[in-house]
């Protein structure tokens, strides 16, 4: 029974299912807020989660990956992110319900009162600092900082992993070349974060938790932060082993596990399978024309086509927001490329939409 359950969990955690289930869970939590924001839901979740950990602890492979010193913070990250996501939605739901009844928000009600910084704020800060110091000291006594063999250029460890907070980006290397996964996407994340206050013109939800007043903004950030950042960090840390192959949490990290790479370029599909040509054109631009046309359509034509309905929905159809709209669309389309490429890889083994290795230009 125990072994079967382990196999089932391993099977459940493979990237395709892991991702699909995360999407379903996220939509369900946001959609059925009346249920998901109940206190019993989060308590139940943490009880079940702790029970799972306690059960899985005795498994040597699970134990090895969880107790690796540098992986401890990721367990903390998982627990805190889930708790605080729930807390924000919980408070948002209460506020939304209060507003429907004509009551002020929780923050609005309390915000009328002002209290002295000394003692109310400084004591909270002091207690937080003392508790955090205690936590860090106990953690430091219990678990030693890792030190491996001395650095050696000739011996490459397998797997070689970046620091844990960059493993989401390393995971993207499965689907994209380094110039996109390691340079363009991180740059767009930073630019995109900076642009948020200038793109979001919705004046509501400033200084209190809510969902119904900013459904698009909150859903987008949940998808971006929870689904594509935190959950990819967890995938890259716990579920990727030698050769960046997938390993379930209870699976032994076998150095010889090979996942055959049979990925095919879009141009190959076009010239061989669709047109039945024996040979693709030698000129790279002509060869990759179908992919280039698709990308141009995606980045240049799609924003124009969607301009009217989306402008009306997000910017009240005001012409003055046209620059905001196109900036937002450009950033969103780059972001959208990630799930699109993932789905194409999983369904038709697509390698590159445009693949010009001669110029290091592979998308």
């Amino acid at each position, binding site marked *: 029974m125990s072994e079967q359950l382990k196999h089932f969990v391993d099977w459940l955690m493979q990237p395709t299912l892991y991702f699909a289930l995360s999407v379903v869970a996220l939509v369900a939590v946001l959609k059925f807020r009346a249920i998901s924001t109940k206190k019993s839901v989060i308590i139940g979740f943490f009880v079940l989660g702790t029970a799972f950990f306690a059960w899985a602890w005795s498994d040597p492979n699970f134990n090895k990956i969880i107790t690796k010193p*540098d992986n*401890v*913070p990721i367990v903390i*990250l998982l627990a805190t992110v889930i708790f*605080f996501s729930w*807390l*924000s939605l919980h*408070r948002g739901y209460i506020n939304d319900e209060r507003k429907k009844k004509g009551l002020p*928000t929780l*923050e609005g009600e*309390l*915000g009328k*009162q*002002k*209290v*002295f*910084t*000394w003692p109310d*704020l400084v004591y909270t*800060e002091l207690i*937080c*600092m003392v508790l955090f110091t205690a936590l*860090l000291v106990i*953690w*430091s*006594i219990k678990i*030693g*900082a890792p*030190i*491996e063999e*001395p*650095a050696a*250029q000739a*011996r490459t*460890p397998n797997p070689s*992993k*970046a*620091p*844990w*907070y960059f493993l989401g980006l390393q995971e993207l290397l499965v689907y994209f070349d*380094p*110039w996109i*996964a*390691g*340079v*363009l996407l991180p740059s767009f994340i*930073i630019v995109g*974060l900076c642009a*948020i*206050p200038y793109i979001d013109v919705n004046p509501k*939800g*400033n*200084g*209190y*938790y*809510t969902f119904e007043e900013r459904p698009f903004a909150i859903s987008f*950030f949940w998808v971006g*932060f929870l689904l594509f950042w935190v959950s990819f960090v967890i995938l890259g840390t716990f579920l990727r082993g030698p050769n960046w192959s997938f390993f379930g949490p209870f699976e032994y990290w076998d150095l010889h596990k090979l996942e055959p790479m049979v990925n095919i370029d879009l141009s190959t599909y076009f010239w061989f399978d669709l047109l039945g040509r024996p040979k693709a054109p030698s000129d790279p631009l002509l060869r990759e024309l179908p992919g280039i046309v698709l990308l141009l359509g995606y980045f240049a034509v799609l924003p124009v086509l969607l301009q009217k309905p989306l402008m009306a929905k997000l910017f009240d159809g005001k012409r003055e927001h046209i620059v905001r709209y196109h900036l937002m669309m450009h950033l969103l389309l780059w972001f959208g490329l990630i799930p699109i490429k993932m789905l194409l890889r999983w369904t038709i083994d697509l390698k590159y939409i445009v693949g010009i290795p001669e*110029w*290091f230009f592979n998308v």
Partner: protein
Amino acid sequence: MGKLFDSIRNTQLWKSVFRHGYPDTPRNRTLAVLSNFFLHLHPVKVRRSGIQLSYTWCMGGLTFFLFLIETITGLLLMFYYRPTAELAYQDIFALREHVPIGIMRELHRWSAHMMVITVWLHMYRVFLTGSYKPPREFNWNVGVILLVLTLLLSFTGYLLPWDQLAVWAITVGSNMARATPFLGHEGPGASLISFGGLNFIHAGDDVRFGLLAGRFVGEGALLRFYVLHCVGIPLAAATLMAIHFWRVRKDGGISGPL
């Protein structure tokens, strides 16, 4: 006992430091905040909603606190660490072997990991409460840069133990720079930057080379990362933090409903 404290509070020495009585009256509570250099970051009075833990999660404050822990433990570690390829690993190893119940390196490493988490959660909270909206747009931007600096601080520090874990993590991370468009020797467009058939961008002068001071993670990279980790990035982060906190006050304090 109370008498003893009273007599201490009445000495010239005490009064020269603290210019107010015990903070149990509105006047003294105001003075406690106003006349203390560290506390005067705060306003005298705050909205009750703004100091609720379930509203702020205390994550920004904890991030700053962790930065202070990092500064103190990092300073102590610098006494025992020499950033050269011959000595770096030895020094870190000796720290573990020769110092009984030494936890400075542990405190430094675990606090660094926690700081990454708290800074993410702080950003998450600020987003979810819409606190980036006017008038706080600029401070959100300062925060984004501080978040990037936190990651860079952690990244540069990751190399310093100079063991296999460190060197290969930085190798994997910095390999990305090779593929920078135009500026990395394996990036798209790099071959366009040439003159008379001569390529300007190659493995010996691209951005990765500039980052690592070499073609691989070697001694040059160690020194470069050490200086950035101990001096460069902390200075930049401290400056931006000062601006960040100052702007919180100028933009109306901890956010709340308008």
